[in-house]
């Protein structure tokens, strides 16, 4: 396992105490804390490099542009993108998927066509497709999940018989921690001629990702879930697809020539980056990637899987606790319920011990309906968590049981 105590010293916020207790931050699937290296990269950018990018003819602006484009190359390298120009900076996964739906989707999905999603998709990889299908008179087909929280491959196959125009799924489920066989799903979808959109919000921070090996067409990621600032993120796409797509937002930067009544557009990726971009976010994301690469995505994945396994082992020892999602290989996300104690009550009680978990539907209401729960409690781990955090979680849960007078049925 990683030396989490040493890594934690890099994160100023984790030194804080919460409700008089050591902060135990277990809501990493929602967002992660930021290391000093990222905080100082952002401050340094404003102290030494800030100017508008791709516009100024002076040295400072050139340096700002270089920093921004270097960040793009860094993201491209981190996920093995097809080319740096196939990396469009966005505010995060949600905007990346909306970009695909609003540009590629509106150009290629029409009346009577089918778009395939899964029952474990986050609302951000569902609602944009609902909007598109409603607008176009297309059919949205939701693939079912198995009892243990995996994509039902047989239902996936049935959905593909409709020869969908587009297939969208998450690499890793934010609510269950399921690691989906993304390369296999992409191959099956391509075999029927569909374009493949992968929600990488939960995979990019936690696994070694190689989009060319996955062979998807679009891959969306969020920086804030991988140590980078909020509002950082990217759409990683096959350049030839981006080339052929109509613009998403209109404005400065995305144009080539502007006439009174029409315009020609800039080359990719700038065609999709209208307006002044969030350069600070890109620079922060590059610093986060440096930090993650120094540790190594494979080692991070191992560390989190060990913590998740320890959490599952300890939580299932508590009478009345149900853990959702697959056993065995999974990401560092553990969703659970505890008897009739509502997840919100659990979260409030744990908070008094300085433990931060998420309680709710995890932006996955279709999934919650299938699990037949209104909400779950969710602990999610990252590189700075340690076995002591899992023990604190289990200990505090026992306390919640006592407070509620929980008696196993």
């Amino acid at each position, binding site marked *: 396992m990683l030396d989490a105590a040493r890594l934690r010293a890099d994160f100023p916020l984790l030194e804080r105490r919460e*409700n008089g207790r050591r902060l135990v931050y277990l809501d990493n699937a929602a967002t992660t804390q930021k290391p000093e290296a990222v905080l100082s990269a952002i401050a340094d950018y404003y102290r030494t490099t800030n100017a508008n990018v791709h516009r100024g003819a002076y040295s400072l602006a050139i340096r700002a542009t270089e920093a921004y484009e270097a960040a793009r190359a860094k993201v491209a390298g981190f996920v093995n993108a097809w080319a740096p120009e196939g990396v469009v900076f966005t505010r995060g996964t949600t905007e990346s998927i909306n970009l695909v739906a609003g540009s590629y989707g509106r150009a290629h999905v029409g009346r009577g066509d089918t778009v395939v999603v899964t029952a474990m998709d986050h609302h951000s990889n569902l609602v944009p497709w609902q909007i598109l299908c409603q607008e176009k008179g297309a059919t949205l087909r939701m693939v079912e999940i198995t009892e243990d929280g995996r994509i039902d491959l047989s239902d996936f196959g049935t959905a593909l018989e409709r020869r969908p125009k587009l297939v969208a799924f998450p690499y890793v489920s934010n609510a269950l921690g399921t690691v989906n066989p993304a390369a296999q799903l992409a191959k099956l979808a391509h075999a029927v001629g569909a374009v493949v959109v992968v929600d990488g919000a939960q995979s990019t921070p936690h696994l070694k990702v190689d989009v060319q090996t996955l062979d998807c067409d679009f891959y969306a990621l969020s920086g804030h879930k991988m140590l980078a600032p909020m509002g950082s993120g990217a759409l990683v796409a096959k350049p030839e697809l981006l080339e052929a797509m109509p613009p998403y937002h209109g404005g400065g930067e995305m144009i080539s020539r502007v006439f009174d009544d029409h315009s020609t557009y800039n080359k990719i990726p700038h065609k999709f980056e209208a307006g002044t971009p969030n350069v600070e976010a890109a620079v922060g994301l590059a610093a986060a990637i440096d930090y993650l690469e120094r540790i190594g995505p494979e080692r991070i994945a191992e560390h989190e899987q060990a913590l998740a396994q320890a959490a599952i082992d300890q939580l299932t020892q508590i009478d009345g606790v149900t853990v959702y999602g697959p056993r065995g290989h999974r990401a560092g996300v553990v969703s659970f319920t505890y008897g*009739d*104690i*509502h*997840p*919100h*009550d659990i979260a*409030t*009680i744990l908070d*008094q*011990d300085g433990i931060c978990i998420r*309680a*709710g*539907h995890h932006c996955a*209401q279709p999934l*919650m309906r299938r699990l037949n729960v*209104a*909400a779950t409690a969710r602990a999610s781990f990252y590189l700075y968590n340690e076995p002591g955090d899992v*023990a*604190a979680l*289990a*200990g*505090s849960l*026992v*306390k919640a049981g*006592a*407070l*509620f*007078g929980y008696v196993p049925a």
Partner: protein
Amino acid sequence: MDTSPPEPRLSALYQELILDHYRRPRNKGALDGATHSVSLNNPLCGDEIDLQLRVDDDVIRDVRFIGRGCSISQASASMMTQLLKDRTVPQALTLAAQMNAMMQGDESAAKDKALGDLRALAGVSKFPVRIKCALLPWNALTDAVKP
């Protein structure tokens, strides 16, 4: 493992009476002959309430609820229904105002006997994110009876 007793704030929040209403909700289920009904949910946490009232001549003759959610929202709904029967609509709205005041930390409202069992929820005012849970059934009531 930390085995110290729960913090006073937590014990104040999760009083026996609240857990009793949560586990044995009063007036839960559909109401025959309802004249007013409102469904509300809290999109953030998924708490749900479907409040049904039978109002006759501006008097709440009967009230029941269907819902699911946390102990605070469900106990608040259960306690509310106990209190509303045979009240006039203006009286019910006055109680809703008192409940709101108590959630804002108003100590005189928290001592008001008119709130009955609901006074057990006074501790919620110390947990700002949970106030919306306690007020969910009251917001449903206000929506249901507004002219």
